[in-house]
């Protein structure tokens, strides 16, 4: 959902509102966080970008999924990334996820919801793995799993059904993938592919295009007609006699 798109949630371009289903992140209290997103950016009822990136990099082990107005989400995450980098250089310490959340919510509250970006911040820092969601007006939640965007309801239903604490990595990836897929199929504002970002203490792995459930179908039949399918019943030819009235010759400069 960069640019104009909206991530699982809605992303919007400067003048568009994109909806996307955003994914949620699954918080493995033991090891890490998985962020997921679809890749559709919409402009009202038209798909503006079929393969946008909604998962943004904030720090080496902190990533952000942005939904809502795409431009707002994009600029908010870019500013967070810049501020986190400055903070890291200043303090000499790696950033905390709570720091990113705090700066984001303070900025969004300052603009009283006019900056329409809802963001899920997830990452691993020295205190462990954390997942926060921040809404456009500046409120935030800290939960084991979160969804945002237009496809949030579809995605959270999958989570509510199958989430357990301390899942294995593969099971967790499958769960997030299924939740995003639910958004892709059940919500018009989400579509195309599933992107995942697996963040652990070792680092972050951005799996772009992890799954492509909504591919273009294969055409089964041939719809061409053989030449001669339509019979010719009659043929009439009328020659037109034309006289030359005026003739000019213009030489080309060929040297």
């Amino acid at each position, binding site marked *: 959902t960069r640019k104009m798109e909206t991530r699982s949630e809605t992303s919007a371009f400067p003048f568009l509102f994109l909806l996307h289903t955003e994914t949620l992140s699954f918080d493995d209290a033991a090891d890490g966080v998985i962020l997921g997103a679809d890749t559709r950016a919409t402009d009202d009822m038209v798909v503006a970008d079929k393969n946008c990136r909604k998962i943004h990099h904030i720090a080496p082990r902190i990533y952000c999924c942005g939904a809502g107005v795409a431009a707002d989400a994009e600029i908010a995450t870019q*500013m967070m990334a*810049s*501020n986190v980098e*400055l*903070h890291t250089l*200043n303090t000499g310490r790696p950033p905390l996820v709570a720091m990113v959340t705090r700066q984001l919510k303070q900025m969004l509250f*300052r*603009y*009283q919801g*006019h900056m329409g970006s809802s963001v899920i911040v997830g990452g691993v820092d020295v205190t462990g793995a954390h997942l926060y969601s921040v809404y456009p007006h500046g409120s935030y939640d800290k939960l084991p799993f979160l969804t945002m965007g237009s496809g949030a309801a579809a995605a959270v239903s999958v989570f509510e059904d199958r989430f357990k604490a301390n899942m294995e990595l593969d099971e967790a990836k499958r769960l997030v993938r299924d939740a995003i897929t639910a958004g892709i199929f059940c919500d018009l504002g989400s579509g195309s592919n599933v992107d995942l970002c697996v963040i652990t203490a070792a680092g972050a792995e951005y799996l772009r295009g992890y799954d492509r459930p909504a591919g273009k179908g294969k055409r089964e039949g041939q719809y061409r007609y053989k030449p001669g399918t339509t019979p010719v019943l009659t043929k009439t030819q009328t020659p037109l006699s034309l006289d030359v009235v005026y003739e000019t010759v213009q030489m080309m400069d060929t040297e």
Partner: protein
Amino acid sequence: MNTRGLRSQLKDSVPVAGLCPQGSYGIQDSLRSGFTSVKNELLPSHPLELSEKNFVLNQDKMNFSTLRNIQGLHAPLKLQMEYRAARQIQRLPFLQSSNLALDTLRGSDDTIGFEDILSDPAQSETMGEPHMMVEYKLGLL
């Protein structure tokens, strides 16, 4: 239009349009300052206009009052004196100052906000006349 709640939204300083129009020769300069409209001068044109205009001021007020409660009156007084001194360090009248000393005091030298990204003075569409402005500042005009 319901005007009951409008008083709280009025801009705090209203330019008196009729008395002294901004253009030369004393008439409204439509090219540079647009058409006159009483509503535009009394009411804010965006819900955030007033809160953004006063944001830094309000933040400073809040911080100073907290500081006063914690450390006593001397702390905000000293800081305000330093702010006042730092604010006076400017370049020539027509050049935008970097406000480095003020930024360092305030602690905004290591954060990036919209004021750093947007409205780059190098890309400004208007500029003052350097000679006139310097002469005016020095009182030669």
